């Protein structure tokens, strides 16, 4: 990993690639969750597969965790370095004149998403790990849907989820499109790719919001 973060460009590419991986993860996570809106059975089936398949559990899951940790640790490292690059700040800085708020405040949208991840892990991942590997309960392939619906009972939690998805949208709005630039993808297809990324940044979080709200009111 030393070589990966040696130069500024390498760091930036690493940030982009881990981000892209997370975007991909987000897409599959969303696709699975979205089945819960129309078919509890399909949702249970896929969740059962994901929760018990050894490749998912012991190969993909660690990679994902690594990517998450890498992405936010690197985010902090970059933020600290970038702060150091301008030791004396401007008395007046008109950042809005030349760059969007989102692009200048990735650290904050990122931190909200990180806080959300904490909540999310506490809600789903930790109980799941405890259920499976600590208490070693027998697998019930139909338990997933109910656990999901149960979590969205509380309006506060649902509200927090919705708020987090808004910040996720902001983070993706700049992050996804910008990752193309970081890996050097800037040709005649770049404009289209950027549009796709921007659409993704809205559609996926809105989709998650819909899921949360549907289950909240379905209850």
């Amino acid at each position: 990993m030393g070589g990966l973060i040696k130069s500024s460009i390498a760091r930036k590419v690493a940030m982009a690639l881990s981000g892209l991986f997370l975007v991909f993860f987000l897409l599959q996570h969303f696709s699975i969750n979205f089945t819960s809106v129309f078919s509890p059975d399909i949702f249970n089936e896929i969740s059962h597969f994901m929760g018990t398949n050894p490749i998912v559990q012991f190969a993909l899951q660690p990679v994902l965790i690594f990517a998450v940790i890498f992405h936010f640790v690197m985010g902090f490292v970059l933020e600290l370095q970038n702060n150091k690059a301008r030791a004396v700040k401007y008395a007046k800085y008109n950042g809005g004149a030349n760059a969007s708020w989102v692009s200048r405040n990735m650290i904050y949208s990122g931190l909200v998403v990180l806080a959300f991840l904490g909540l999310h892990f506490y809600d789903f991942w930790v109980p799941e790990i405890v259920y499976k590997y600590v208490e070693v309960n027998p697998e019930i392939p139909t338990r997933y849907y109910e656990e999901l619906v149960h979590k969205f009972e509380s309006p506060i939690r649902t509200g927090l989820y919705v708020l987090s998805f808004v910040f996720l949208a902001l983070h993706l709005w700049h992050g996804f499109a910008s990752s193309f630039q970081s890996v050097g993808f800037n040709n005649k297809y770049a404009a289209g790719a950027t549009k796709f990324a921007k659409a993704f940044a809205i559609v996926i979080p809105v989709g998650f919001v819909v899921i949360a709200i549907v289950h909240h009111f379905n209850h």
Partner: protein
Amino acid sequence: MNLTLKIWRQKDAQSKGKIVDYPISGVEGDMSFLEMLDVLNEELIGKGEEPVVFDHDCREGICGACSLQINGEPHGPDRLVTTCQLHMRKFNDGDTIYIEPFRAKAFPVIKDLMIDRSSFDRIQQAGGFISVNTSGNTIDANAIPIRKEDADEAMDAATCIGCGACVAACKNASAMLFTSAKVSQFSLLPQGQVEATERVMAMVNQMDEEGFGNCTNTGACEIECPKGISLENIARMNREYLKASLKG
């Protein structure tokens, strides 16, 4: 018009500086921003005070010497101009104008608004050249045809004046636009291919060593660049760098 200037004054690199207020009257719209500062300096000299020191030379927007963060933006609120070509008609009577040096760890202040941009020179020295001696018998200039589009694009990148506005505008004080402009110019020309790998590695290395920040693609540099250097150059440099890393 009458203005209030809030100008960064700093005795030398070692001293701490501060913002000092200067009221100024009789400013005309036809004056350039630097001519307005000339007027202020004449007043200060008349009063026996030290004039405000700032970098400037050609005053026609090409040498890249002038800088200044004006109301929080490099080269002020107008687009595609340097401070020397920014005219006072862009301001209104009664305005308060903050005038600060371009800020970056790699651009230490020398005095008042004057900064040391030798870090840019060192980036160029690391690899911003094609190794060809002056012999008088290099091949004929027309021996290698170059696509017009490539030549034009190389020219667009080469118009960088090295003023540092990209660094000043960037929230991370990154020098990627500056460095990538030179890397792009040479990577678009056949003459530059031979040393492409070494060049991009050496220049990026030097850029990092100078203490510039990382690029986070905010795009502020492109907006503020007085010569309109495109972000595409940064993408191209990223590509060149990845290629070079894989090679060697």
